[in-house]
């Protein structure tokens, strides 16, 4: 019963708590305590602006985002967007498989990832193409309740609530490279282009009527709220445990996951690592199933290629090639011996971060198009608001680029 009311917004919000998300929030809490809590409110508002637009477009036009981009901007701009989307999502898929590897290492020891990653790759491939994807999606959504453990653990850790609230409301900013890196990671992992594509396709596929827009908005905001509540408590839980005990967490260190898992100790005691691993595994598997598929649909839709998960290779060669490539590539890179996992999990945030300032104007143009949106087009006030979001995201991206090319600027 409960599952029948779960809408595209809630699914999108849950899938967004993927491997890069969990690691990102946990690193934030481990390294800076509660200092970054305020950022969650800012990202939630930005995310709400973007996801509301795509949910509205999906409801009103009944078309996917890549359909709209193609129909409005023609072949060449669409091709650029699709290339970027493919790169960003392929990079994120690598990170999800790295998450699967990391989780399996915590559960079964070091060698496990060389078995777990290919098994997961094959599993995901078959699951989506030959199995009942909807059923497994629901199962994974239920398993996502494992994130509640962070809430419980955070409470059990007895954080100083006055401090928590203070940092949530009052921004704390350090102009240092590590802070900036985490800052961007959080923005990059929370607000991603693929979520826009994913949610709009899902909304369009549901065939909602514009009169149901209010419900779809509630669904969207609920998804974002759920996502941010989990993020909030991951930061509080790590802040109240790892950070206060001055455990130094270096993301490039193989033991980083084990250290982060300390956050669950107040709840799970000696099984903290296992609990953390299960959460990570679930989050990674869900995103690894959803991402390649949503990317493949976006690209094939944009170019009008034959698509559908029940098509044979002869019927839909491009569809199956893109889909399989993403999974094989993702699994292979994540499995590469001595792969720099820190870079792998950060790469998607770089590409996503770069893509956002590009995608947002496109979204705004589409959502302002009176021809397709009619009376549901953006209001002037909303445009001012999303303009501010655009400026904010562009600044973050610029700062991030600066920190890469001129690291000296941000030295402590």
């Amino acid at each position, binding site marked *: 019963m409960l599952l029948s009311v779960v809408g595209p917004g809630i699914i999108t919000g849950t899938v967004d708590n993927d491997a890069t998300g969990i690691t990102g929030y946990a690193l934030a809490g481990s390294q800076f305590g509660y200092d970054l809590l305020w950022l969650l409110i800012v990202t939630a508002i930005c995310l709400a602006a973007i996801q509301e637009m795509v949910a509205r477009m999906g409801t009103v036009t009944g*078309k996917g985002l890549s*359909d709209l981009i193609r129909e409005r901007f023609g072949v060449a701009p669409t091709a650029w967007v699709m290339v970027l989307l493919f790169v960003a999502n392929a990079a994120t898929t690598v990170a999800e498989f790295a998450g699967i590897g990391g989780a399996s290492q915590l559960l079964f020891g070091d060698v496990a990832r060389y078995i777990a990653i290919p098994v997961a790759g094959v599993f995901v491939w078959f699951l989506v193409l030959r199995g009942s*994807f909807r059923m497994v999606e629901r199962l994974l959504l239920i398993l996502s309740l494992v994130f509640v453990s962070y809430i419980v653990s955070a409470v059990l850790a007895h954080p100083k609530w006055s401090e928590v609230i203070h940092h949530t409301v009052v921004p704390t900013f350090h102009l240092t490279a590590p802070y900036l890196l985490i800052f961007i990671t959080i923005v990059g992992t929370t607000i991603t282009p693929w979520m826009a594509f994913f949610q709009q396709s899902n909304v*369009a596929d549901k065939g909602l009527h514009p009169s149901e827009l209010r419900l779809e908005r509630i669904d969207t905001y609920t998804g974002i709220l759920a996502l941010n509540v989990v993020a909030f408590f991951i930061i509080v839980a790590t802040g109240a445990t790892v950070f206060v005990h001055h455990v130094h967490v270096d993301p490039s260190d193989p033991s980083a996951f084990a250290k982060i898992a300390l956050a669950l100790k107040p709840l799970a005691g000696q099984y903290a690592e296992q609990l953390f691993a299960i959460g990570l595994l679930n989050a990674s598997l869900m995103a690894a199933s959803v991402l390649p598929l949503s990317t493949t649909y976006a690209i094939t839709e944009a170019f009008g290629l034959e698509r559908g998960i029940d098509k044979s290779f002869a019927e839909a060669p491009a569809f199956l090639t893109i889909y399989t490539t993403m999974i094989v590539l993702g699994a292979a890179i994540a499995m590469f011996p001595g792969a720099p996992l820190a870079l792998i999990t950060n790469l998607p945030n770089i590409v996503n971060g770069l893509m956002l300032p590009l995608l947002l104007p496109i979204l705004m143009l589409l959502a302002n198009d009176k021809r397709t949106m009619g009376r549901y087009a953006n209001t002037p006030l909303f445009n001012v608001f999303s303009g501010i979001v655009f400026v904010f995201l562009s600044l973050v991206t610029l700062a991030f680029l600066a920190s890469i090319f001129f690291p000296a600027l941000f030295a402590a």
Partner: protein
Amino acid sequence: MIFLSDFLNAEVVDVRQHRVGRVRDLVVVMTEPFPKVTGVILKNNRKVRSLDWSVVRSWDNKELSLKVDAASLQPHSRADSELWLARQILDKQIVDMDGRRVVRVNDLQLSQVEGSMLVIGVDIGSRGLARRVGLEGLGRRVTSALGLDWPQKLISWEAVDPVKSDVSSVKLRIAHSKLAKMHPADIADIVNELSPDDRSAVFAALDDEKAADTLEEIDEPQMQASILERLDVERASDILEAMAPDEAADLLADMPRERAQQLLQKMEEDEAGDVEELLAYREDTAGGLMTTEYVAVLHTLTAAQAIERLRELEPDAESVYYVYVIDEEEHLLGVLSLRDLIVAKPETKIRGFMIKNVISVRLDAGPREVAEVTSKYNLLAVPVVDEHNRIHGIVTVDDVMERVMPARGGGRRRRIF
């Protein structure tokens, strides 16, 4: 071959070689069998204007030269059934009637026939995509160097149906006339791939019977409901009337209560009554599975009268497997096959040769029980009766099998996004 992309963005120069602007779009009127280009939309320094196709002298290499000078240019004469190719067709989805699928327009093929420029084909292939980004030449060199063939993928304009939701409904009726001739199952497959607005546009072009059959072929209740919700109440209720009562009831059960009530009120009383009765039963009972379209005749009739009665009723094919025999209060007395009726002497009373102990199920029987009964007695349909043995409907074997068998049908397209 001439393509729309050859014209787009081409420089327009007048008879004195003065620049007039760049081509933005071509305007066509929907003539049969091929649309005819009537005008050119051009843009110069943010100013958009149009000119008549008749003043175009020649075009070559991204340049369009005119027969007249810029000062004497007149806007093209507007027509009701005109379309802007780049804005309304290019990059949009259209229905490929031969392939029975939805494709995207990568380019449009034009041809000069007896002084007119006609749209004759739609490019749906990778060459069209490459041409749009200026890479067709390069691609051809690469493929021919590799000894490969790079075929054009074109479909004839006669075989497409431009699904356009922002075109007025009069034009749509013409545009969809080809689509309307297809088999309902094929239309359903196509509709499956369209956006909700386009779906409604297709339905607007079908007559009530065809629309009802197509709706029955779409087996996702949610989608059926969303299509009806986007049509106006009058039209939606007309379509519902044309549907089998059990299908109509299933559909209404999936709609918001208010809207369903509204539709029921607009329907003819007879049909609405049948549907309302079906709606009252729970979905997982024989009552919920049954249809009220069955053939029943009074026990007092002779074989000849019964056949005459059948002629009057004009039953659908699927409901004529069995002819049920009832009394004045609709109590189920017996059953006949068509064969029994035909071979019997015309003047014999049907009471005399009907099969008296009829296999039936109660209104509250579960689907499994209904399935067991039909398979045990090899029935194509089983009558549904109340506690007083009054007949209320029949459950056909395909309806009950659909319910009992696992949902995954082989042929249907599965969708995720």
